[in-house]
């Protein structure tokens, strides 16, 4: 695949605060790439640097082989869908979409043809004469997408474009965006703090935290093989335990030794062990590798979410079997359920569910309450 944008060792600070700390990233042609992370991780700043609204303090932005660090936004072959759409309230739907074409002095007949095609692509034919302020959030969103795509940019930047929509509409728009990206072949750079959104839409996910890139990979790489405790915790639910890698394929944690699929660590190296809640099997206590007491059960529709106290560490376990609060249960772990990570600065910060509650999760969630 052809590289379309390269970020090389980019750093950016606002005052004393370092927002981006030497990040490097290649973005390929026809790729749906998502920058994912909590607020303040630098994902929006990265997008704004690509769009030309911020300039890096250090490092280079390379667009199709050319360094474009100082090129102003209106000269870049990049368009943006803004977080709150930023539609022009003094223009109707047609004129909003026609805005960039009129700037380029495209002939009138051509403008009509292009705008009509864009509006039908976002399923807003017949809305051309409407005032943008009279549209619903979802419709405004579509106008913003049509307006950003009418110039046929090489790259489309999307800054949390679905954040203001309700859950149902957001799911529909996710599908639709993905479809538009496939049909147009335009590279999409998508910014979100919603890991579910990132997993379902992206070809590539870039997980960011504190101005650094933590991991770049496909959605399944990121989910199955998180590189550190931050990524494991941010993407999905994880039980993260302290462990010791005894030798290749043998790890000890929670007072037991387990078989696993990982190798290449030093003998007796301390590691972080990640176990996804859905990979834990509940069995009778006498057959369990580990045993503990169920402290709470939440019915989630498809599954039950149980918090289980095993030797003082609270595990989250998701199971479709019925479980009861207060029950003493055993659990078993298959070797492929155990994922080993090197220790990092995030070790010990996440992974125990003793203070877990959905409400707290929402409060501490930087993106705000709309994140499910």
């Amino acid at each position, binding site marked *: 695949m052809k590289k379309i944008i390269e970020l090389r060792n980019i750093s950016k600070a606002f005052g004393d605060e370092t927002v981006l700390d030497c990040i490097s990233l290649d973005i390929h042609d026809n790729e749906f790439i998502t920058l994912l992370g909590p607020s303040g991780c630098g994902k929006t700043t990265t997008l704004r640097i690509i769009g030309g609204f911020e300039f890096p303090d250090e490092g280079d932005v390379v667009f199709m082989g050319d360094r474009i660090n100082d090129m102003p*936004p*209106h000269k870049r072959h990049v*368009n943006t869908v*803004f977080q709150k759409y930023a539609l022009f309230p003094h223009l109707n739907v047609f*004129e909003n979409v026609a805005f*960039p074409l009129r*700037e380029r002095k495209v002939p009138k007949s051509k403008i009509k043809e292009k705008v009509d095609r864009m509006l039908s692509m976002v399923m807003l034919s017949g809305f051309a004469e409407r005032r943008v302020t009279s549209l619903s959030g979802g419709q405004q969103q579509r106008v913003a997408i049509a307006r950003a795509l009418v*110039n046929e940019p090489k790259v489309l930047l999307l800054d949390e474009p679905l954040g203001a929509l309700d859950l149902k509409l957001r799911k529909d728009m996710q599908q639709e965006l993905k479809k538009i990206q496939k049909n147009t072949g335009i590279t999409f750079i998508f910014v979100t703090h919603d890991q579910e959104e990132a997993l379902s839409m992206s070809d590539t996910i870039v997980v960011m935290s504190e101005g650094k890139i933590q991991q770049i990979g496909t959605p399944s790489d990121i989910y199955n093989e998180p590189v550190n405790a931050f990524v494991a915790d941010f993407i999905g639910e994880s039980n993260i335990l302290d462990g010791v890698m005894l030798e290749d394929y043998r790890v000890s944690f929670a007072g037991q030794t387990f078989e696993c699929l990982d190798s290449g660590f030093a003998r007796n190296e301390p590691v972080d062990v990640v176990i996804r809640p859905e990979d834990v099997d509940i069995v009778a206590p006498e057959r369990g590798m580990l045993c503990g007491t169920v402290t709470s059960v939440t019915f989630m529709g498809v599954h039950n979410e149980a918090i289980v106290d095993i030797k003082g560490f609270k595990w989250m376990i998701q199971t479709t079997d019925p479980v009861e609060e207060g029950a003493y249960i055993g659990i078993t772990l298959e070797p492929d359920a155990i994922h080993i990570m090197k220790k990092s600065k995030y070790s010990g910060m996440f992974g125990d569910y003793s203070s877990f509650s959905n409400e707290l999760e929402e409060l501490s969630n930087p993106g705000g309450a709309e994140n499910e």
Partner: protein
Amino acid sequence: MKKSCISRTQGTYRAALAPYSVWSLLFVIVPLVFVAYYAFTDNSFSFTTENITRFFTATSNMIQDDGTTTEVRTYLLIFGRSLKLAVISTLACLVLGYPIAYIMARAKEKTQKTMVTLIMIPMWMNFLIRTYAWMTILQDTGIINGILTKVGLNPIHVIGSETAVIIGMVYDYFPYMVLPIYSILAKLDVKLLEAARDLGCGTVSVLRRVVFPLSMPGVVSGITMVLIPSISTFYISQKLGNGKFFLIGDAIEGQYVANNLHFAAAIAFILMLILLVGMAIVKYVAAKYVYGGE
């Protein structure tokens, strides 16, 4: 339960509104009714349209520059002159004020506050005093000419000219143009400017296609707030125009002082009517321009 709750808040709302309603009734509506009443009555308070007709038909002789005398419609001429000076002053305020309002709106918050204060400080002084200050500045032996002769240039004669009157009006009404435009521009969503740049607009295009159309409400209220007082002003023209430029405000004042209340009311009534129609047209055109697209 809910219904009574609503009606109670509405009751409170009405009660809170009452003093203002009484105030505007006493000091806005009633005087306006009196103006209309006086305009259409004679000294014995019987109905007449004579005062109105007089405004349109009264004539006088005017000596032209070349010495010939022509007969002119007195009050139409005065009104035309008032309108001309007011329009020029308003345009000058707009041309000078818009860039300042824009710069203020884009400045840092602290700078914005300072600039708003600087613009408003002259308003804290009585406008008679401000006008007198301009007299001393513009006089033939005034400050400007003092400086000009010091640096070896020829003195200029400004006082008593239309230019002097316009300078006075622009100075007096400048804040009324800047502040409404500033308040609209300050609220303008920066994202819209970014969106315009993103979609291919250079700086000039952003101003022309996004900033200016969106600031139209501020421009309209700025124009209203400058045009109306400057069309009806009477003091500035007397002091800075040396009384040579008799304006419609001077006419009203003159008739009033001469105890000719009915004709004074008639002029005021006509002026009000013309201004109302004028502003309605401005609003209509602006609305069309703002929301009509290309």
